[in-house]
């Protein structure tokens, strides 16, 4: 093993992480504040029972919120119990995992502004597409 190359690799990795450190701290601080500021039970109130509007609301909500995916399953399950459509709940679950409004500043600086905006925009649109595909697929297999 080339020790000089290993030392260089460790230094480069350390420098890369150190440069990302303030963004990571900022993002985690924002997520922490958001998670204690918004009550999960209030999410149901945002949905209007509209078949077209609700998936969009679910998509927006999932894009803004961040955190452990388990929380999204729990919230999604609750929304479903409250009578919110499966397309809206699925759009919420998918955008929770794929779109990151809170992480956008960090993503913009570390991976490029154009990339971050394009990626989050397409992920937002595709969340609804995945939701429609999933519900169509589930209906097909269940019937």
């Amino acid at each position, binding site marked *: 093993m080339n020790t000089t*190359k*290993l030392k260089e*690799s*460790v230094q*480069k*990795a*350390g420098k*890369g*992480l150190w*440069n*990302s*450190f*303030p*963004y*990571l*701290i*900022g993002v*985690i*601080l*924002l*997520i*922490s*504040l958001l*998670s*204690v*500021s918004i009550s999960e039970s209030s999410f149901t109130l945002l949905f209007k029972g509209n078949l077209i509007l609700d998936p969009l609301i679910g998509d927006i909500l999932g894009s803004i919120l*961040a955190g452990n*995916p*388990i929380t999204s*399953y*729990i919230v*999604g*399950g609750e929304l479903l119990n409250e009578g919110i459509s499966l397309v809206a709940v*699925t759009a919420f*679950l*998918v955008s*929770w*995992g*794929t779109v*990151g409004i809170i*992480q956008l500043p*960090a*993503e913009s*600086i*570390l*991976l*490029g502004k*154009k*990339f971050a905006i*394009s*990626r989050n*925009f*397409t*992920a937002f*649109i*595709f969340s609804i597409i*995945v939701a429609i595909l*999933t519900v169509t*697929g*589930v209906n097909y297999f269940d019937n």
Partner: protein
Amino acid sequence: MAYTGWYFSITVCVIYLITATFNLSKVFFALDQFKMIILKILPVLLLIFILMVVTNYFVNPKTLTKYMGKNSGIKGWIIAIIAGIISTGPIYMWYPLLNDLQKQGMRTGLIATFLYNRAVKIPLLPMLIIYFGLTYSIVLLTSIIFVSVAQGIATEKIMEIIE
């Protein structure tokens, strides 16, 4: 880029200070939450550091371009999908490593596909099945995997249009 991160963190601290003037207990709850997240992600951070060292040591731009560059073809998409599915921890933890790989020539669409597949959480599959059923879970995860390629291509196309 050198100071932007610190400006960002300082801005967030200012948001905390403003919140504290209205609701001090909320800030303490948020800081508790912050501590919990930090403790939880420390092992992931270590894993990412090791992965960064390994990629810096073994992967050179030529190899990376071959497997994940512009002309990597189907194997590039497969690698991005599998890597996205098996990667653990929060999405933002992977930005430093992806930043490294991007500089070495990793295709933009593959980065987007990798990040999209982070929504597929195999360890949490039992939980997803309990909440939404087996059929739903399988169809959802399959849809995410297939759509991730379209999303990667769409991201690249939009970037080309912007540029």
